[in-house]
């Protein structure tokens, strides 16, 4: 029972103290999970992280489930995951309620009009970063262009593209293997 509580509190602290999730969370995980508590080794953590990126869902959530499961079984996996999302729930709900109440104020509207421009730039920068790792040759460029055009101009469901892209990846690589 104490272990579950410890898992919850540790992951709540990790969730509450890291800005940005994903990679920003790694140093915090190393300190809390590997060094302080020995719940996983450095290599295991890197494995969880790598697989967390290659499975659906949020990387931070996936990693929390892995560490929790390893430490205290299925209940541990669930508790650690609830811990990592707990601070978000509290903080965001408070901010959202606050903004909802003040959204009619001119100052809030002007601030968000400026912020939207910034969001546009931040998304663009994120895309550039992902592009370098994902668009590595002609076939992957083709996948990118088809998905971008299909999603931006035809309003098709992202699920459709995810399924088709997984199938395309398997077929393209199979062809490559056979050609060798």
């Amino acid at each position, binding site marked *: 029972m104490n272990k579950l509580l410890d898992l919850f509190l540790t992951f709540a602290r990790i969730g509450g103290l890291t800005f940005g999730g994903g990679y920003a*969370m790694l140093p915090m995980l190393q300190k809390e999970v590997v060094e302080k508590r020995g719940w996983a080794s450095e290599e295991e953590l890197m494995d969880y992280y790598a*697989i967390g990126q290659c*499975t659906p869902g949020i990387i931070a959530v996936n990693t929390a489930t892995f560490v929790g499961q390893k430490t205290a079984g299925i209940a541990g996996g669930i508790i650690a995951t609830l811990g990592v999302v707990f601070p*978000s729930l509290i903080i965001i709900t408070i901010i959202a309620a606050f903004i909802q109440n003040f959204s009619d104020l001119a100052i809030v509207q002007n601030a968000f009009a*400026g912020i939207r421009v910034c969001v546009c730039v931040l998304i*663009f920068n994120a895309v550039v970063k992902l592009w370098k790792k994902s668009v590595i040759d002609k076939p992957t460029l083709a996948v990118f262009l088809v998905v971008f055009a299909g999603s931006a101009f035809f309003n098709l469901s992202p699920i459709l593209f995810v399924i088709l*892209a997984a199938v395309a990846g398997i077929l393209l690589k199979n062809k490559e293997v056979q050609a060798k």
Partner: protein
Amino acid sequence: MMIYLQLFFEFFKAGLFAIGGGMATLPFLYDISDKTGWFTYGQLADMVAISESTPGPIGVNMATYVGFTTAGIPGSVIATLGLITPSIIIILIIAGFLKAFKDNKYVQHAFYGLRPASTGLIAAAGFSVFALIMFHKDAYAASGNILDLVSIPNLVLLAVLYYFTAVCKKTKGLHPVVFIAASAVIGIIFQFGGV
């Protein structure tokens, strides 16, 4: 009751199909906006800004925010649970055969296609924000003046922010919250909202 079920289901789908962390849930949120009209593209952009400026994983923050906007506090809890449920199920299943999963040929090949697709989806979501803030079709239709079609102040701010976030070596490593706060101040001083 129906809206809670629908909220859970929509975020369950996002959690199941969004691959590559944080921003990868964004295209799904746009899809939800298209289908349900629970929130606008503009509101979504605001949620992205808040989610980047507060602690916690961005994807989780956005789910909480969308859930709250749609159905209050129960909505924020339900959307977040919907988002993480597929992760918990999938990870608990593959935790048993970790190495086999990671080294599996088909998994690796699928990701060869999935990674650029995920990038394309996020780029399309970014394009929606870009189109929303840059082009004012209504103003153009009302005045017939082509200069009203493109928002010049937004374009200038966009270029300046791009310089400081991606080009200038001194500032590009700074946390996004710095740029978001600066944009808010600029928006207030120059009345970007037009009010």
